[in-house]
């Protein structure tokens, strides 16, 4: 008994052929428009992808170069500040007694006077 199909044809919306056809056309038309809009947006994204990447790469290079220059400057500055310490340490190790003018010259450099 349960092997027989239940007749559900009364629920079939396509029985009203004219109405169903209008519905099909309406849905197909909506879907087509939505698809075209989506493709248009996709094309826009594709078109802007290369210039966008180029700009991003240029900005990245500029930032990297700036960071590199800044690091070099920092290293140079650090080097000039470390120099007096080395000189003083060298004098201490070697038991040298430098002239006052030399000491002032070296310490003056550490104050950023040069």
């Amino acid at each position, binding site marked *: *008994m349960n092997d027989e199909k239940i007749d559900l044809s009364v629920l079939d919306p*396509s029985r009203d052929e004219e109405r169903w056809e209008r*519905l099909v056309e*309406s*849905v197909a038309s909506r*879907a*087509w428009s*939505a698809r075209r809009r989506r493709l248009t947006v996709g094309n826009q994204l594709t078109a802007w992808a290369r210039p966008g990447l180029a700009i991003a790469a240029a900005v990245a290079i500029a930032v990297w170069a700036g960071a590199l220059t800044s690091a070099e400057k920092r290293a140079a500055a650090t080097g000039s500040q470390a120099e007096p310490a080395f000189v003083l340490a060298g004098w201490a190790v070697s038991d040298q007694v430098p002239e006052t003018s030399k000491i002032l010259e070296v310490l003056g450099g550490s104050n950023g006077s040069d």
Partner: protein
Amino acid sequence: MPAADTAALVVRAQRGDRAAFDALVRAHLRTAYSVALGVVGRPADAEDVAQDAMVIALERIDTCRDPARFPGWLVQIVRNQSKNWLDRRRLRDVPADQNPTEQADHTSWPDVAGEKGRLLQALGRLSPVARQVVLLHDLEGWTHAEVASSLGISEVMSRQHLFLARRELRSQLDGQAVVGGSP
């Protein structure tokens, strides 16, 4: 429609063939409607959900990786759309002082007169999965393999759902003298 024909239409649609769009809608909108009806209950609502799901499916047709399995892919979209629609209805229908999660089933089965009304009322007594199985099998003519694959259940479960659904429907329809009997 044979899977090969569907696959060919899907490939044409992916390439932007408008006629293929029309053919896919013509061939599969009723399936979308049947699945939506199985979930949301009201024929008018099912029609809206089926239309929206069809538009979404065709808009994203290039994401359908296996064109031969377009019907199953569409069913998944319809089911998701139907669930979203039920969630929206649940939020809309629940009074402000009531927690929406307390409402178990917002699928409503309308009082439609005549044979259609009797069938809808009888379908309303089935579980959502059983409704979808019986609609896809007995209205759309799908095989159990197709139904099982689309609904994510085993073929055995599909057969079992169909057996029980038919028995329940026959029992309801045979014993229902008055249109729109209480659920």
